């Protein structure tokens, strides 16, 4: 079997090395790119992310990657996995660091965890936490029940009224942990930081 070619979108803010490290472990042929043309033509895209939503969207726009991503996944041939901030960027909007519009590939908005919702839990939500996945979720095939994944975030999306919820997590309130619909996939947690569970999930994404 020839190597699976994966493009990791580089917009200056992701934990690029970690993601590349995991993909190489899975024997992928990894391309790290900030070229719109490369991204438009890539069959498998990963949008990583650590940082603030507003800054990230500004970077994507500046590099004209926002249009390239949308263009790339418009048909059904190419697929994308957004990770952490990368998932949030696929959302419709966020209130982080001022109101900012997202790529709108997931019809959900991004809001900060409310103190009232999380109760005695601390914000940001940091550490390994168990998620509840849907039985048919493609990303979670072969994984144990209530698998642990690594989270680090202060903002979240909610699963309410959303089609494509593949897993949720509870942190005072139930929030969206993973999403999959057609060719759009995303996780609020970091699969590249979640030991074998994460590697397995990445492999599932590549195999879809």
């Amino acid at each position, binding site marked *: 079997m020839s190597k699976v070619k994966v493009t990791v979108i580089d917009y*200056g803010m992701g*934990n690029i*090395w970690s993601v590349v490290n995991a993909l190489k472990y899975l024997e992928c042929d990894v391309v790290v790119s900030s070229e719109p043309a490369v991204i438009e033509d890539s069959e498998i895209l990963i949008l990583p992310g650590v940082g603030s939503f507003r800054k990230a969207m500004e970077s994507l726009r500046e590099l004209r990657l926002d249009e390239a991503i949308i263009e790339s996944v418009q048909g059904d041939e190419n697929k994308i996995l957004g990770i952490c901030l990368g998932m949030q960027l696929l959302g419709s909007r966020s209130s982080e660091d001022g109101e900012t519009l997202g790529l709108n590939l997931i019809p959900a908005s991004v809001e900060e965890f409310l103190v009232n919702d999380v109760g005695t839990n601390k914000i*940001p939500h*940091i*550490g390994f936490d168990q998620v509840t996945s849907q039985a048919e979720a493609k990303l979670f095939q072969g994984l144990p029940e209530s698998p642990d994944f*690594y989270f680090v975030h202060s903002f979240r999306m909610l699963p309410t009224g959303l089609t494509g919820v593949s897993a949720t997590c509870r942190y005072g309130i139930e929030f969206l942990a993973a999403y999959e619909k057609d060719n759009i996939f995303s996780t609020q947690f970091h699969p590249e930081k979640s030991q074998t569970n994460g590697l*397995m999930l990445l492999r599932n994404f590549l195999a879809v």
Partner: protein
Amino acid sequence: MLSRNFRLQNVGDLEWLKKNYDFSHISYSIDELVVLDVTRGEKNLEDFCDSLKLLTDGCFVPIAAGGGVNQIESARMLLRSGADKVVVNSGLYANNGFVKELASEFGQQCVVGSMDIKSSADGQYQAWSENGMKCESGPANYWIERIVSDSVGEIYLNSMDRDGTGQGFDLGLLDLLPDRVSKPVILAGGAGNANHLSEGLGDSRVDAVATANLFNFVGNGLMEARKSLVTNGIVLPMWDVQLLERHLSAARVNGDKAD
């Protein structure tokens, strides 16, 4: 690779570490790795980043890295070399908005505020910076309170008195914290066995415990410590190390049949 045991003993370089420890396997016993460049004086960030890449190859846990981080660009380099978070120590004390700038660039969750605390002759705690060389004036609780309310995502409290001794954490550090800290607190310095780790985690003010001692100096200590914590009812994720391998070999078998 320096351990912090008894004033920085040099325990071996990266090759030594790779040879003596199957690090990617050991990483299944930890939930996060903290890698610090503790070189005194001039640090070479590029070399450190290269070591970080080598060390974290095949290691799939969150990694916090630091040592002398006082510029946005050095933080960015670490984050591009395997780090998920940057550890800031001396940079916390300068009143120049550096921590805020870091947080606004990479997000607050990306900044770990690391404080070295030592008790002075009169029994009062004080904060030290610059690799423990410079004493920050004023009581430690003043600095802790200030830094907790700055734009750090987590606070890492290290006892310089206990660091490397293996005699257990200094839980007295926790009394220096403001009443209700809304950020995760990591306690470090002094853990020498599983009971110490358990003691630290048993305090409601502690969210995580760190150890360098067990990992560096006691054969299988870390794995055994983790097992013992879980047996004693502390909730930690347990990993099925073979999960992926099993799946891949099953897929290979099926693939062969299909051919």
